[in-house]
């Protein structure tokens, strides 16, 4: 999907129609699907992974992929919860109240920084060496998860139930958690970044034709690295929210999220080879996947059959999408 309206809408409509169709079917035939609570649940269940997927979309439009997001969520989450602990802060300084405030701030900032740092590392290596991002970030996936396990000593890290911190994951507005709103805002922000800024435009140019972008004088390395940083940062954000919501994090947190995220992005119509895609599409893709699972649980389908059904639905969805767009995504 490029920016110019008529191209964009077609591609997005496809997935939108599929989503709408499925939604309608579920509302009609799935017991207690179309209830306020369940709809909120679907949003909740999409939001956190959705933030990761949204960040990943930017990287993928630039023609790269970041498989280390899951590991980053784990590491950042551990970091966040450690810093909510006053006893942890005591390790540095006697935890007086204002110092606790400082540590609360750190609990939120450091995970984001870590995420950004991992992204920066991936970006530097990929752009610097010209290596394939899949293999590089596969390496990062292992390394970061290992790091997380080392750092947490293989234990589960619990939050200190610091009300301010927990609010990030638990405060609600009209029974809707605030992070759901944050998720939607985040998506819109990234979409705007891609659509209306020179940076965003460059992302599409680079994803479409790297050589030509270099010749045109786009600061290619800077832009590509930035896309990785955005992705890592998004993972950091997701980590903070998840940690605040569950108040626990471990080296196994977010195992395999990289897959779910990439799936959502690709279903959302972003090309695996870059140049095409949009964050809104990813939003729809994420909702689609969540909705499928949610519906199947509500239908009380035995879990093994859920696998089979999920697979079939994903293929069909993408198939319809491909057909409407007359091109393999």
């Amino acid at each position, binding site marked *: 999907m*490029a*920016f*110019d*309206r*008529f*191209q964009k809408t077609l591609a997005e409509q496809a997935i939108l129609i599929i989503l709408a169709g499925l939604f309608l079917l579920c509302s009609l035939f799935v017991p207690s699907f179309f209830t306020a609570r369940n709809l909120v649940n679907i949003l909740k269940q999409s939001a956190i992974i959705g933030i990761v997927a949204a960040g990943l979309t930017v990287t993928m439009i630039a023609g790269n992929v970041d498989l280390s997001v899951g590991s980053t969520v784990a590491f950042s989450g551990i970091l966040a919860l450690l810093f909510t602990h006053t006893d942890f802060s005591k390790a540095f300084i006697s935890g007086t109240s204002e110092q606790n405030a400082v540590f609360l701030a750190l609990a939120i900032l450091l995970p984001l920084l870590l995420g950004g740092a991992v992204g920066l590392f991936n970006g530097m290596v990929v752009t610097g060496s010209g290596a394939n991002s899949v293999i590089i970030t596969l390496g990062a996936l292992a390394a970061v998860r290992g790091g997380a396990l080392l750092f947490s000593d293989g234990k589960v890290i619990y939050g200190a139930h610091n009300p301010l911190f927990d609010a990030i994951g638990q405060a609600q507005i009209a029974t809707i958690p605030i992070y759901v709103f944050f998720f939607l805002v985040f998506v819109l922000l990234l979409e705007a970044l891609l659509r*209306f*800024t*020179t*940076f965003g*435009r*460059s992302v*599409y*140019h680079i994803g*479409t*034709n790297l*050589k*030509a972008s*270099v*010749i*045109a*004088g*786009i*600061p290619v390395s800077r832009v590509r690295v930035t896309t990785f940083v955005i992705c890592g940062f998004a993972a950091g954000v997701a980590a903070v929210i998840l940690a605040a919501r569950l108040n626990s994090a471990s080296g196994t947190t977010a195992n395999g999220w990289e897959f779910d995220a990439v799936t959502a992005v690709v279903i959302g119509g972003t090309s695996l080879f870059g*140049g*095409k895609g949009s964050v809104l599409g990813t939003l729809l893709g994420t909702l689609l996947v969540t909705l499928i699972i949610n519906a199947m649980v509500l239908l009380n389908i035995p879990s093994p059959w859920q696998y089979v059904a999920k697979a079939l639905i994903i293929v069909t969805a993408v198939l319809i999408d491909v057909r409407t767009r007359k091109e393999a995504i």
Partner: protein
Amino acid sequence: MGADPILEMKGIRKEFPGTVALDGVDFDLRGGEVHAIVGENGAGKSTLMRILCGIKTLDAGTIHVEGVERFIAHPRDALALGVNMIHQEFANFPHLSVAENIFVGKVPRRRGLRWVVDKTALLDGAAEMLERMRLTLDPAARLGTLSIAHQQLIEVAKALSGNLRILIMDEATSSLNMGETEQLFSTIEALKAQGIGVIYISHRLKEVLNIADRISVLRDGRNAGTFARGSFSEEEIVQAMLGKKISLTEKSSGRKGDVVFLVENLSIPGKVKDFSFTLHRGEVLGISGLSGSGKEVIVRSLYGLWPCTVGRVEIGGKPVDIMRPADALRQGIAYLAEERKTLSLFPGMSIRENASLLWLLSIWRRLVISRTKEAATVGEYTRRLNVKMTGIKAEVNSLSGGNQQKLILARLLMVEPGIVILNDPTRGVDVGSKQEIYQAIFALARQGASVIMTSSEIPEVVSLSDRVLVLSRGILIGELSGGDVTVDNVLALASRAGAVTT
């Protein structure tokens, strides 16, 4: 030459959504003749040939090959009939060896083990083909490592290697220099002798005139006359193509202003040695030479696309350091790359997005794009360069090659550069657009910008440049200016031996 045609296409019609690409076109080809097809981009040449090769199917009309009506639905059918095409966009395999490229789709198989490639036969066959084309290349070499020109010649060898009755050459020489072109022509003569029919498509009229036995002109998907050799002048052809007279261009005065760009002792290991020059305001400076002279790498390195060592670089009297394109842009240098498809275009993105690229970068710090201003600027410049399009939101691939090139030129001009570097600005561009591009270049010079240009066509360099620097194997051999700028002088210098010591 055989009198009765080996190919007859009658009443060929092809519609694409919205346009009629071909409207009842007739075309015939005799064995052992070269029949050229000329016409503006979008006149239908390529479509006609694609139909003949089975890449596209016709809506109406008949194709007779050697008197038998044939239905060509798939490339395989065409190949089976001995119809081979040398494609304008490279249809080659950079990862494969020269030999495998030549025999792709028809590799020799081992006797006994049909499913196994006969490596020796492959290499020998390839060596033989290369021999026939007087190319001294290693059949086992990886194609990607060869020069564009050699890759193009391999395309020809590819066609020769198969069962060949009809050879279609679509812009086969667009990336060849004169020497290589001569070589190709001698190959064509050999083919004629074997009674093979050649369909020759090129925008280089001069070539067409001296290779073709007959020339058919297409305009807007219809026949616009067929001329036998010697029965016409270049102007007539051009007129037939455009359907109107065009004034061939006059070089701009070439009065020099002060020095805007100075380069001393530019060296590129193994390619160029101590190349120095000055560029004056309002001047068109040509850099010429045979292939391997290093002219391309020089212009690339001037724009920061190729690592080089430089003694001194000054722009407007101030020393500058150009390490990469961004630096060059900041110094007001714009660059037009030689390969349109791979190095300049962003297929799948809109005309707007393709055009406004540099303009946006030039205001990089003003982050948010003002779509209205963008549209306005794009509109203005595309009008100025007379880019024919349905609208700036259309996909860039919907434009003809010539218009694409004009669009890219517009992209450069939008940032009002002080220095414009043009690397083969009219490669694969039709006559009409060529003229418009020339006009734009002169206009640029008149407005006080300076132009550095190089081209695979020496005549083009000559007809555009006020001054020409001639290189031979990486060494600056001489400089021609004013009246001395003639094709013969350039060739004379270019073929003089220089030696690069690294």
